């Protein structure tokens, strides 16, 4: 079992990183490499679908978000964007996935649903813009998943456990390694890409308005997809993280533990308790209560009707 990034670097120094992860997973979970690849081909297709569906936008469950992808898509098509196409697409695809997610659409948790836009944003944008073979993207998903599985040995991957660093931070780190791999980076480049990305998300809190995966989650996914791309860029140029990846993960766990409960997905701090955040939460609560009351009244009416029916 690969227990640390240090060990990974030794094992995979002169080898294809995806092959190393596939082998290790096969040994550990008795799932043949081809089955993992096949499952990930399907997941890449779900990500693609999501990106297509999501571009047109639409209201989310809490109605706080929904049009981000549509607006950016429009701007891009009309030539009104100023960033390079790779960056714009990474943002757009991340927004699309997160819009679908907030509508209770079918998505791929990568590694979580709340951070599910980052990896497809980075990898699918790169695939398109640099004409990468989709099979290489699938192998980059292996690399990203493998990186995440080592992080998960010491950290719970959830905002409730350690804040958003544990979700979007980890996604950005996984995606950065995937991008470095797709661009032909070495194992060392990939690990440093992951390290640079993760290190610079430490301390990121989880403070969703009204407890929904909407604000700030949707836009944050877009921004951290770009963050991951820039981390991969540095690593591919040979820039390395001074703090080794294993120690960064340890720091993340420690920081997560010291975060107050209010900043760990409980919606009891940060953005959630700003004036606007509170007002939105109150509105959501009122709406939910109204719906419940309506439903109860409806049930009551139905029961009355049944009674009248029986007596007549």
């Amino acid at each position, binding site marked *: *079992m*690969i227990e640390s990034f240090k060990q990974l670097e030794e094992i995979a120094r002169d080898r294809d990183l995806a092959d190393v*992860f*596939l082998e290790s997973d096969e040994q*550990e*979970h*008795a*799932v043949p490499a081809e089955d*993992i690849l096949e*499952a*990930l081909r*399907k*997941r890449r297709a*779900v990500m693609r679908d999501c990106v297509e569906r999501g571009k047109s936008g639409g209201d989310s*469950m*809490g109605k706080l978000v929904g049009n981000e992808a549509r607006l950016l898509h429009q701007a891009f098509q009309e030539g009104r964007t100023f960033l390079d196409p790779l960056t714009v697409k990474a943002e757009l695809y991340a927004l699309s996935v997160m819009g*679908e*997610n*907030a509508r*209770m659409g*079918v*998505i*791929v*948790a*990568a*590694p*979580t*649903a709340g951070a*599910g836009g980052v*990896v497809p944003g980075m990898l699918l944008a790169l695939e398109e813009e640099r004409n990468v073979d989709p099979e290489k993207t699938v192998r980059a998903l*292996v690399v990203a*998943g*493998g990186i*995440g*599985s*080592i992080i*998960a*040995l*010491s*950290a*719970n*991957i*959830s905002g*409730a*456990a350690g804040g958003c660093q544990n*979700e979007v931070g980890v996604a950005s780190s*996984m995606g950065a390694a995937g991008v470095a791999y797709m661009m032909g980076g070495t194992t060392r480049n990939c690990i440093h890409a992951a390290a640079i990305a993760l290190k610079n998300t430490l301390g990121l809190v989880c403070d*969703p308005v*009204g*407890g*929904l*995966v*909407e604000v700030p989650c949707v836009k944050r996914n877009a921004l951290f997809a770009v963050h991951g791309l820039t981390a991969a860029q540095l690593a591919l140029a040979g820039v390395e993280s001074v703090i080794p990846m294993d120690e960064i993960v*340890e720091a993340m*766990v420690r920081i997560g533990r010291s975060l107050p*409960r209010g900043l760990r*997905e*409980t*919606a009891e701090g940060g953005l959630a308790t700003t004036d606007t955040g509170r007002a939105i939460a109150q509105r959501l609560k009122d709406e*939910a209560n109204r719906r419940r009351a309506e439903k109860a009244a409806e049930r009551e009416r139905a029961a009355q009707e049944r009674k009248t029916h029986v007596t007549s």
Partner: protein
Amino acid sequence: MAVRHDRKVSILDVMGPVMVGPSSSHTAGTARLGRVAREILDEDPLHVRFSLHPPLAATYRGHGSDFALVGGAIGLNVDDPRIPEAIRIAEQMGVTIEFGEEDLGDVHPNTVHIEIKGPTREVEIVGSSIGGGVIEVFKINGFQTRFKGDSPTLLLFYRDRPGMISEVTKIIAEEGINIASLYCSRKQRGKDAFMQIDVDSPLSEEALRRICSALDVVDARYLDRIP
């Protein structure tokens, strides 16, 4: 270091699951917990009660955890687009549903106690959704265990006596099947006991029949990997 998992999470667990949004811990994980209860019950439920640990009780509604828990409890998969309709579907099936709050102690924030009743049986589990759709059920019908639903698993309820574990594991060994993990607990010496055996590959009907007909087995449940 934080919690070290007993087994490494697989690539497909990290880069997945494919699921209905919006939250892997609040939607996918909770749907899987509901599904575990349903699979152990092994019949259509009539009544389900979900007692949520306070942090989950505070956040579940906005994430659709109520739809997800109920969806799982009526047998829907985490990627089933009907999950947003699960409560209505359950009502149509005649299942009564209750939600409550319960302090479950020093556990993961997203922990739930599920009591599910069918025409002939009832089952009770306590489990956590620890992120990314990954779950850990640590109590089944009052017995301590560690169930993750990531491999085929045999649950045995039996009367505690010497030699029971070796009899059962011998049958599995004769099948040429590797045991990934084994958890045992009991309520009292010589009384109700429980064994959970996670296997690397599926058990044959014949092996299950032999195990179930062993003396002192009160009840047995064989579960596939929980999707």
